[in-house]
C-alpha cells in the first residue's frame, strides 16, 4: 500500500514537472515580449530594455528555468522581515517557502494573488458541479424511467438546448432576465458580506450549471437505460423489490460509476477557472486572472496558475479513485487481494 502511494506521489511530481516545463518552454517560445507587454505597446525601446533587465528577462532561458525551479520550493526564515528583498514574493510554511515570483503586471506576489482567488474559484466550481450533478442526475433518472414518454422527450430537448448553448449566451440571458429585468439577483460582482457573496454566486453557478446539468442528464439517462436492462435488475424485479429500491440502490449505483470520473475531471477543470463565466459576471477567480495573464504575457502568473490547475486535476483524480473504491465493492476486494 505504501509502495503504491509512493509511486502515485512520484508519478504526480513527474506530471507536475513535465507540465511546468512544457508551459515554461511554450511561454518563452511565443513570438512576443513580456517586457513590451509591461511597458506598453508604445513604450520606447530603451525603456523596454530597462524593464527587461529589471524583470530578469535578459538572462538566458536555461538560467531563468533553473532559477524558477530553485525558487519554487526552498528553505528560508520562518518569519519574513517587511520588505525582505530575497523573500518578498515568498509564502512561508514554516521554513519551507513557496515562491512563484512577482506578477509582472500586478506587481504582487503570485502566490498571494492565487491564494486570494483560488477559494472563490473553488466556491464557484463546487456550487456549479453540485448543481450539475443534482439537476443532471435527477433529470437523467426521470427521463430513463419514462423512456419514450413526453417527459423523456422534454428532457432530451431541453438538454440538447442546454448543451448546445455556449455559456456566454446562456449567461447573458440569465443575467438579462434574472438580474436586469426581474431584479432578483445582482448583475455581477463578488460582494462584501457572506450574504452578498452567496447572492452573487447564483448567476455564475447557474450559468455553468445549465451546461453541465444538460450534459450529465443525457449521460445518466443513457447509463440508466443500459443498467435497467441488465439481468440483475430483472432479478430484482422478479424478487418483488420496490421500484424505487431497484432504481436507486441497484441501477443508479452502477450508473453513476462513469459519472464519478466525469465529475472529477470537470471539477479539476473548473478549479482552474471558468474563464468566460468569471469574466461575464466579474467573478474574481482564477479564470479571469489566467486569461489576463496569458494576454499580458505575465509569465509568473501563468506558471502559478498552471501549477495550481495541475495540482487540482491530480487531486481530483485521486479523489475519483478513492470514490471508486468506496462505491464499487469489487474494487475494494481487488485492492484487499493485491495488498495481501
Amino acid at each position, binding site marked *: 500500500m505504501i509502495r503504491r502511494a509512493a509511486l502515485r506521489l512520484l508519478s504526480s511530481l513527474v506530471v507536475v514537472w513535465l507540465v511546468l516545463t512544457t508551459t515554461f518552454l511554450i511561454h518563452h517560445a511565443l513570438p512576443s515580449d513580456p517586457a513590451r507587454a509591461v511597458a*506598453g505597446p508604445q513604450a520606447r525601446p530603451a525603456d523596454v530594455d530597462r524593464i527587461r533587465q529589471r524583470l530578469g528577462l535578459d538572462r538566458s532561458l536555461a538560467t531563468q528555468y533553473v532559477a524558477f525551479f530553485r525558487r519554487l520550493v526552498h528553505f528560508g526564515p520562518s518569519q519574513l522581515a517587511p520588505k525582505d528583498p530575497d523573500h518578498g514574493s515568498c509564502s512561508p510554511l514554516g521554513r519551507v517557502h513557496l515562491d512563484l515570483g512577482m506578477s509582472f503586471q500586478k506587481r504582487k506576489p503570485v502566490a498571494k494573488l492565487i491564494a486570494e482567488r483560488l477559494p472563490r474559484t473553488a466556491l464557484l466550481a463546487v456550487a456549479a458541479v453540485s448543481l450539475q450533478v443534482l439537476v443532471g442526475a435527477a433529470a437523467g433518472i426521470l427521463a430513463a424511467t419514462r423512456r419514450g414518454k413526453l417527459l423523456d422527450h422534454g428532457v432530451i430537448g431541453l438538454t440538447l438546448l442546454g448543451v448546445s448553448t455556449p455559456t456566454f449566451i446562456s449567461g447573458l440571458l440569465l443575467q*438579462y432576465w434574472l438580474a436586469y429585468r426581474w431584479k432578483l439577483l445582482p448583475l455581477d460582482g463578488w460582494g462584501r458580506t457572506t450574504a452578498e457573496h452567496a447572492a452573487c454566486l447564483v448567476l455564475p453557478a447557474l450559468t455553468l450549471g445549465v451546461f453541465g446539468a444538460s450534459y450529465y442528464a443525457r449521460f445518466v439517462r443513457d447509463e440508466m437505460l443500459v443498467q435497467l436492462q441488465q439481468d440483475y435488475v430483472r432479478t430484482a424485479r422478479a424478487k418483488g423489490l420496490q421500484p424505487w429500491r431497484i432504481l436507486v440502490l441497484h441501477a443508479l449505483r452502477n450508473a453513476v460509476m462513469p459519472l464519478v470520473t466525469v465529475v472529477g475531471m470537470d471539477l479539476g477543470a473548473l478549479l482552474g477557472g471558468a474563464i468566460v463565466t468569471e469574466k461575464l459576471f466579474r467573478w474574481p477567480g482564477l479564470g479571469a486572472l489566467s486569461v489576463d495573464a496569458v494576454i499580458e504575457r505575465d509569465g509568473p502568473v501563468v506558471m502559478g496558475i498552471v501549477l495550481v490547475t495541475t495540482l487540482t486535476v491530480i487531486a481530483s483524480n485521486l479523489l475519483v479513485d478513492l470514490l471508486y473504491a468506496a462505491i464499487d465493492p469489487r474494487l475494494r476486494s481487488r485492492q484487499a487481494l493485491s495488498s495481501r
Partner: protein
Amino acid sequence: MRSIPRAASLAAAALLCAACSSELAAPIGRRDDSPPARGGTITVASFVGLRSLDPAVAFDEGADPIQRLLFARLVRLSRDGRFEGELAESFETSADGRHLRFRLRPGARFHDGAPVTAADVKRSLERALHKRTPCPAPSFYDRIEGFEAFHSGATHELTGIRIESDSVVRFDLSQPDATFLAVLTLPMAAPVCASGGSSYEPSFSSRPCGAGPFKLRQWDDHEGLTLGRHDGYAEPGRVWLDSVRWLLEVPLTTQRFRFERGDLDLLHDLSVADGAAFRRDPRWRGQGEWTVPRMTKGLFMNSRMAPFDRLEVRRAVAAAIDRDSLARLRGGCVVPADRVIPPGVLGHDPDFPGQRFDPQLALDSMRRAGLPFDPATGLGGWPDTIDYVAPADSFDLQFAEVAQQQLARIGIRLRLKAMAWPAYLARISRAGQARIGAAGWTADFDDPSDFFEPLFASKSIQDEDSQNYAFYSNPELDALLERGRAELDPLRRRAIYRKAEEIVRDEAPWALAYGYRRFEVWQGYVRGYRPHPHAQLDVGFLWLDRRDSRGSARSPAWNGNVLASLLPRRGAP
C-alpha cells in the same frame, strides 16, 4: 414528439429576441441649467482593469483618468488646448527654452495634509526616474540635465531640477525641448506624498497619496475604487462631488444594464450598437457626445521590402484607400483620417490637405512603378500575394478586409494574417518580417513629436522593437523633427510640422486612414460634464442635481435587487 426540441429552440430564440429588442430606459433627472452644488457621488465604470495606482509605474488607459483625480500635476491642458497651472500658480520658460520655472500655489496640500513644496516636486520626479523604478517611459524626461547619470545610478540627485525656494522649482534642460510642458502633464511627473519615498516601493500603489482633487478611500480588486473629495486641493471651490465610485473590468453589456437602472451615472464604454440606440432615442438627446479621437490608424508599408520599397507603389496604396467608406462602419465611431496628427492632439491642423482617395491616381502610380494593372481584366499589378498582418479580434482586422478589397482594384493582392496582439506587435517591429500591416498610434502626450518621432524618424528604426514600422528613413524629415522638438515659437513650430505632414503624405510610409472615437452618455442630473478633448473621463469637476431624480448610483454589487432587500446588509441599522 420530435417537435419538443424544436419548440424549446423556438422558445429560446424568442427569449433572445426579446432581450435584444428591449427599449432603452429614459434618462434619470431633469435636463436644465442649475448652479453647481456640493455633494453627491458619481459612479462610473471601466471595461479595463487597474494594474497599479502608483503614478511612477502605471501608464495605461485604465489608470490615467483615476490618476488625474488622485494626483495633481504642475500643469495640465485646458479644453482649448492651452497649458494651465494645476499645482503651479504661474510658470515661465526662458528665452532659450532651457529653463522652466514654476511657482506653486500657496495652500496646495497633499492628501496627508502636508503642504506641496518644490522639494516634493523634485523628490517625486526623482522617484519616478530612479534606476530601481520600473517606470515605463523615463525617456520622456531625458532632456533634464543630469538625467542619464541619475537614471543609470551614477548620481543620487537629478541635478537639472533645482529648488529655488519652498514654492519655486526650476527645471534645467540640456537642450531646448518644446515637448517638456506636455510631458509634465502626465501623472508620472505628479508630486506624491513623502510616504511615497524617494524610490519605488510596490506597496505605495495600495495607499496612493498625492495632491489631486480626490483621495483614495477604498480599493478592492474586485469591487473597484471609492475616492473622497480632498479639501486641500490646489484649487478650492472647483470640486463639487463628495466622492467618486469607479467600478473596474465591467463588461459592456453589464455597464449598459447598470446605467439604465441608475447604478451608473455616466457611460463611457458603449458598444457600437448601444451607442447607436442612445443616439437614435430622442429622450437621450443632449445627454451624450462623441469624444475627440486621439489616435491615428491606417496601414504601414515597409519601405525596405518589395514592392513597398518603390515610392510610387506606396503612393498608389495611399490613393487607393477610400477613407470615407470607413465612416459607414461601426456606427460613426470610425472617423476618416488623412494626416498624422489626430484632432484631439495639439498641433492638429484642420486645414492641411492630407492623403486623398483617387483611384485614377493610384492606377497611374502603379504604372509609374512599373506594375500596370488593368481593372477590367484584373491582370497586372504585383504578381505575388502579400501577407497583411493585423491584430485579431479588432477593428484593425475589419479595416484590413476593406483595404484588401480596395487594394485589389490596383493590383495589390493581400492575404490577411490575423495574430494575437503581442505576436502582431513583435512581428511588425522586427526588421524584414512584415511588408504591410495594420498600424496605429495613440497619443502618449499632447504634442506632434509624440507621433512623428517614434513612427517616422530614422532614429526609431531598430532590428528588434522598432517603432518605425515602415522602416522609413528620410534625412530631411529627421532634421525637421529635431528642429520641431526644439522650436518654441508656436507659429514656426506649426510650419515645421506642416512640412513634416507633407513629407509623410507624399512619401506615404503609411496610408493614413482613420481615427476612433467613443460616444458617451450621462444621466439627466449630471451637470458640467462634456468629454474633454485632451483627457478621457474627466469627471473630477462636474456636479449632480438630483432634484426630481428617481434614482442614483447604488452599491455596485447590489443594484437594488429583490434578493438583496431580503438579506442583511453590513452597516445597515
